[in-house]
């Protein structure tokens, strides 16, 4: 199966930072708006320039699901695994996908901290963020 590489839009810096264990997100140089997915042009102010800034991997669960069916491409995660959408207050609430590990206490609003991990999918190593609950 042919799999497209990387993400959607202008996100090369995101992947480079993730490879170094950091989270970096684009902030519009014109109107200072955090943007995700990473655009080439700010649709609010028309700027083509973005400041990529490191963002602390701290957020809260916005949505989640505990997956119990062995879908293709997710074999390396084992079952069950919890996929979550994490809102980042430090980036104006932008939401990123992540794995919630452990995911036993999954709930909307759960406070989490993240770190970069590698996942094996479709016979390739892929970077992802693993989020764990914080007290």
């Amino acid at each position, binding site marked *: 199966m042919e799999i497209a590489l990387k993400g959607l839009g202008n996100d090369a810096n995101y992947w480079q930072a993730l490879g170094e264990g950091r989270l970096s997100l684009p902030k519009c140089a014109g109107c200072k708006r955090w943007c995700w997915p990473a655009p080439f042009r700010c649709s609010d102010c028309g700027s083509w320039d973005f400041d990529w800034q490191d963002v602390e991997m701290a957020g809260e669960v916005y949505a989640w699901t505990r997956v119990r069916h062995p879908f293709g491409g997710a074999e390396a995660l084992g079952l069950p695994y919890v996929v979550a959408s994490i809102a980042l207050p430090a980036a104006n609430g932008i*939401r990123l*996908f992540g794995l919630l590990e452990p995911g036993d206490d999954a709930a909307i609003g759960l406070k989490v901290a993240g770190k970069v991990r590698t996942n094996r999918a479709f016979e390739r190593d892929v970077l992802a963020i693993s989020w764990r609950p914080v007290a």
Partner: protein
Amino acid sequence: MSTPRFPVSTAVVGLGVRQYKRGAAPMSEHGVLVRAIVDACEDAGLDPADIDGFVTYGDDKNEPVRLMTDLGTKELCWSTQVFGGGGGGIAAAFGAAAAAIISGQAKTVAVFRALVQDNSGRLSAAVMAHHLTDYIVGVGLTAPAVECAMRAQRMLEHHGVPRQCMEDMVRASYYHGARNPKAVGYGKELDVEAYRSSRVIAEPFHLFDCSRENDGAGVAILTSAERARDLKQKPVYLKGVAQGAGKGWGDLLQNDEHYASAGFASVARRLWEQTGLTPADIDVVQVYENFSAQGIASLIDHGFCTYENVAEVVRYENLIAPTGKLPVNTGGGNLAQGFIHGIGTAIEAVEQLRGTSANPVPGARYSLLAGGPGVPTVSSAVFSVDTE
């Protein structure tokens, strides 16, 4: 009104369906599609050679020009696919067909979708392949069920939609399917305990919350209202159709504003404006339910209910034809009628107004079709029994 009235001047005049168990089609996808197109032509009283336009959706692989040698097409005038890997293009395909006819670019257009697993693989994998990137596969978000489950979980947990509504949607689909001889679920009642105890796919979805996959092809032929009057069947008119996404919805890696919705906010608004109708005018609804919760979200988006009163409206008895006030998925829907990427919901929307549905809504005048809930671009259409 910011959206002009839609010209009610095209009609569905022919229907054709060939549906089989997944992996069990007796011929290739191309062959099944030709069968269904010829069926639809016979239904309409048309010569297959006179079909001069084709529209499909959902990354269908059957390029219309390749059908010409089977159909004897005299002249191919319109060959269009609606963008999007899911079922969001199903109603939009009728819009593209009508656009061709109204503007004089084609006279007789077949809207189709064909799916045979041996040729195109599993639909769920194909739909997801449309979206897969490292960002998505890295977290195991490799199936539509996972994506839709996340939105469904927020609909339940944050917006407070009762889980019972999901069960009632599923039961209504199976009730209709059990009474539809053309449905995969014909003659099979869904036991509530079987539903509740079925295995979990991705929380909150159990097995029966998820659509099936079938081999087959479905076809609806459109032509001008004027020409429709001379053909075999009672014409069913396209009253209005809208597709797309509003700002704040789309391919946003789940950064949608109305996250737990089905994405119809702008589409539904334009549909009501261009038809001059309101939800109260609709007699019967076919919602493409890839998953039960997305069917509910579609009803909310179109204004049939709200987060506050959803439990009163999305109630089993209320969803059943002919006694319920909001008969939904009267053919059995994607859950119980079958799933050739949703084309069966479009066929049923038309059959209701022809009066040929297995679960007829007596006197139905307006029938709504909503396609592809939760995907980046969605579409809806209203069909009517007259041009008024």
